[in-house]
């Protein structure tokens, strides 16, 4: 951050900068906690139980879904609470969601399917459950790639349009989550309800904006 006191910027030692630093530290701590807990479980904890592959799949997948939902919660929460600094950790949250989804896929490809590409392709072709999850992650790839400052500058307005893909990705991720449940849909219902509120808020704002413009 620039130390020069151009209009609109703050000095590194100002309270605003200190608060932002604290916010970033808090965000990294919260977002990294599931990973740290997973590493702890593996080396010093329960080793992910009697069926470690299944449990690692569940754990990484559940974390990915909730971090993705958290990234979509930032804008609505900022608008409802006026806590504008939250916007500064939105990109970080999205990238962590992508990281957890990638870990989830990695568990599936490595110690679940053992790189058996024939089986993986069969899974993709025959099972909407697998296809929905894979598509959700695939849609996150361009978003992660274009999350740098350079890409934001280069794409301009188109960056915003491109990043609306996250809504589709979240919908597919939720479908994957839903289909992954055997009979107990409680967790999937909770996630779906939260996601519905977050996406519904955006629809509401868009309608309001159009009404005002008209």
């Amino acid at each position, binding site marked *: 951050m620039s130390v020069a006191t151009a209009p609109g910027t703050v000095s590194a030692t100002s309270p605003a900068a200190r608060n932002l630093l604290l916010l970033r530290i808090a965000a990294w701590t919260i977002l990294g906690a599931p990973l740290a807990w997973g590493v702890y479980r593996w080396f010093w904890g329960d080793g992910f139980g009697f069926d470690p592959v299944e449990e690692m799949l569940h754990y990484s997948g559940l974390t990915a879904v909730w971090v993705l939902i958290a990234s979509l919660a930032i804008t609505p929460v900022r608008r409802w609470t006026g806590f504008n600094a939250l916007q500064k950790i939105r990109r970080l949250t999205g990238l962590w969601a992508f990281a957890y989804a990638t870990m989830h896929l990695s568990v599936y490809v490595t110690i679940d399917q053992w790189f058996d590409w024939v089986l993986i392709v069969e899974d993709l072709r025959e099972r909407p459950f697998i296809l929905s999850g894979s598509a959700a992650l695939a849609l996150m790839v361009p978003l992660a790639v274009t999350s740098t400052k350079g890409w934001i500058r280069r794409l301009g307005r188109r960056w915003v349009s491109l990043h609306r893909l996250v809504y589709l990705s979240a919908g597919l991720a939720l479908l994957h989550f839903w289909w992954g449940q055997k*009979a107990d849909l409680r967790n999937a219902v909770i996630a779906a309800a939260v996601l519905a509120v977050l996406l519904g808020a955006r629809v509401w704002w868009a309608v309001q904006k159009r009404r005002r413009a008209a």
Partner: protein
Amino acid sequence: MTKRSWDTIPESEVTPEEVYLDRRQFIAAAGVAGAAAAALTPEGIAAAVRTVRAQRGASQEAQEYTWGAEMQDELSSYDLVTGHNNFYEFGTGKGDPARYSGEFRPRPWSVEVSGEVNKPGTYDLDDLYDPSWIEDRIYRLRCVEAWSLTIPWRGFALRNLISRVEPTSNAKYVAFETVYRPDEMPGQNRRVLDWPYVEGLRIDEAANELTFLATGLYGRDLPNQNGAPLRLVVPWKYGFKHIKSIVRIHFQETMPPTTWNLSAPQEYGFYANVNPNVDHPRWSQATHRVLPGIRRTDTLMFNGYADQVQHMYAGMDLARWY
């Protein structure tokens, strides 16, 4: 030990008797020294089971160990068998049954035998079977979720009970029902499934030599989380057919409804035979994990028990009757 028709493991893979006896003597000796400490570990329990057998007469042991002795070394640990369960009456997590089944009272227990039989009645569990029927059998258990365990059950062949109650010629199917006690089974307070849990077999399946009613495992009474005090064991079928805590056995002419089939008919059929060629809509059944391992193993037709059961399905389209 007599070679039985269902003993599919080649003779060459069976532990030579002298090695087996040697090991048992060693275990028995070690057992004296460390019994108190070892008894609490799964290995200790396995050793204790073997020691008890070693102390009994050889002829009785041969009769007792009618099935699966050669799988002794593949046994899933006691902790695994009693800590990783699907028993939704106590919760949907694998650890929930062990965690939340402490309030369950498996005694006193009675079982109603009804329907198309000459000798219907409500039997106290101790009167339901003759003590001479009790035997130990080691069976593989293949869950529909593509994992497996190998479990030393104690119990009796269902065919013994069937002969005793004398089914009529109208008895084409056998229906089973789990107890409904929401006060003791917290999972029953949520309608995740349609309670009480019900299951069924065709009469020839029920009378098959493999079909077993377990009253114990690892030489002990069944723990609550494993379906105390009486559960079905059908090793060529997926785990969800193994109905637990049975209170009713009903003989009837029509195919009975089954809980998972009611819940998701396109995913779980009445037969539920282990079949690597017929996939679950959401995952392949061609392989499974032998827990607690992470490598996949090829799933065998009828879970490796084809010689004993495939004759019952001759001419049936098993992709249709999944």
